[in-house]
């Protein structure tokens, strides 16, 4: 999500030089989180996406840091095997988008919820979410990671407000879709519109910034729109209505299109914690479209 608050925070990050402080030889989770907040150069506001330590003992010694799109059971297992116990996911970890246990639709006795908490506790793992503050890194780490993964970082149109555009050599919507599918490592990619239509400009957003922004993208005049997760009746429906009179191409890429950005967060954290192992643990596309 891009809003005024995040933009200001991002500017603060861009302007504030990071000064390394002496770090304890065996930093605790509290130390690591404090240092991340300080090094960000941003006024750290955990709202609205709960960028805080969600779970775990703040006094636990950190053995290494893993960044990821989501702290899935699979990711946690990989992190444990690598000796990493400070987990920095972009998205929520406990099946409630604000990681708000009080608002969870699941009972505390749910077996998946209990197993995940037990795994974290047994392995002295800590989960610290980083959503808004990944977006508000200078340039938006999530967007930059996505553009880099697509090979489009140098093609970004400058001087535009709102979701970025890229300008590409003209190509068919189908060929562009094939590029997106391959570059993003997708098993399945849904496309709206005529596959033969020629595309040269694309408006992009990551994750689920909301229907208002996504509809703005549809109305932006770009030849094609690259979206993460949508609410179909609102956004896909709007595309259907537009397409009754205007040509339009939409790629529904899924929320994991934000994954690569957490690789850039890992790169940044390596500069803050040179004595700790730091890894990005990728999240594969979870979907297939079986024939």
């Amino acid at each position: 999500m891009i809003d005024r608050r995040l933009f200001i925070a991002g500017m603060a990050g861009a302007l504030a030089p990071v000064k390394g402080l002496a770090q304890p030889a065996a930093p605790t989770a509290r130390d690591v989180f404090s240092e991340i907040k300080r090094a960000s150069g941003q006024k750290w506001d955990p709202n609205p996406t709960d960028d805080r330590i969600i779970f775990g003992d703040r006094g636990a010694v950190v053995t290494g840091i893993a960044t990821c799109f989501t702290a899935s059971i699979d990711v946690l297992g990989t992190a444990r095997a690598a000796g990493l116990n400070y987990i920095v996911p972009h998205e929520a970890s406990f099946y409630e988008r604000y990681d708000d246990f009080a608002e969870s639709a699941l009972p505390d006795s749910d077996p998946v919820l209990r197993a995940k908490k037990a795994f974290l506790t047994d392995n002295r793992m800590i989960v610290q979410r980083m959503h808004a503050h990944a977006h508000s890194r200078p340039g938006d780490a999530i967007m930059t990671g996505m553009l880099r993964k697509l090979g489009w970082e140098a093609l970004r149109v400058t001087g535009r407000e709102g979701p970025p555009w890229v300008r590409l050599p003209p190509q068919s919507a189908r060929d562009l879709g094939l590029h997106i599918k391959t570059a993003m490592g997708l098993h399945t990619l849904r496309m709206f519109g005529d596959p033969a239509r020629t595309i040269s400009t694309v408006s992009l957003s990551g994750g689920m910034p909301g229907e208002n922004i996504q509809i703005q993208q549809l109305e932006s005049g770009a030849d094609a729109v690259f979206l993460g997760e949508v609410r179909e009746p609102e956004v896909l429906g709007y595309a259907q209505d537009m397409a009754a009179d205007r040509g339009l191409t939409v790629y529904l890429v899924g929320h994991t299109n934000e994954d690569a950005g957490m690789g850039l967060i890992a790169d940044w954290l390596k500069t803050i914690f040179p004595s700790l192992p730091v890894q990005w643990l990728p999240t594969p596309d979870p979907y297939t479209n079986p024939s």
Partner: protein
Amino acid sequence: MTGHELFEAIKALLGPEANRHRGVDAPARRDTAIAGGSYRSPGTLVDGFRAGDADVDVRGIVVAARASTAVLREAHRLGANIVISRQAFLGDSQDRPVAKPEPALAAKIAFIEANRMAVLRLQDPRLSQEGREIAQAFASALGLREPQPGNPARGLVYPNKAMSVRDLISRVKSGGTTSTVRLVGDPGLRPVGIAFATETNRPNALTPLIARPDVGLLVAGEVHETETAAYIADAIALGQPKALLLVGSIAMEDPAAKRLSEALPQITPATVTYLSSSEELREVA
């Protein structure tokens, strides 16, 4: 019969609403949470007129999964002035008034007003026999019969032994409404039970349905990916025989729209026409 009278007759036919808590979507949850409330429990009603003049005499009725521009134009061409939509009309799942409709929505509203039409949203699961059959229409179209008794708003659960997820996908695609399903899990799984989320305007809060021990497959139009899809991926990683099948909101609602169109002649002499709402999605290949 006016539009309002038609709506009253429909409510009498389909029975009481099955759920007092509905229409909860991400923006509403966030707005409510920021205001200090619980975003799991806004009691927003969904069914009702969303555009146009419901005092008009009903000249003809079109029923569709969605009152798209194409559906509205075809309804007008057919001489129908009431369009019944399963899905939202005003741009968010609660159909909240839109202060500044975006161009495509504004054009639809203008078309409706210029042609003295009205759009009625009718999506709430309801509890009469007719109401239940409409809620079950998608599962019925796939050949599933006799869900477990219970409140359809909490999901429809069909015990299963023989059918694999791949079999079910084949049936979904043979219906012709969608070719772009998304599966999380093993297509070879034979789930112990198949659950259908009936309220496609409530993509959140579906985890309790798939968490049930008698449910192995959740079929939904869409979900919040970082909630329900993430839960199922973790359940699978823990060795649970679970899967998630997303068929898209149009495919989910199209059979219900068709079934509703078949029920309406009981209460109105007006011509009733079902129109299919194509989602117009394709797999990139």
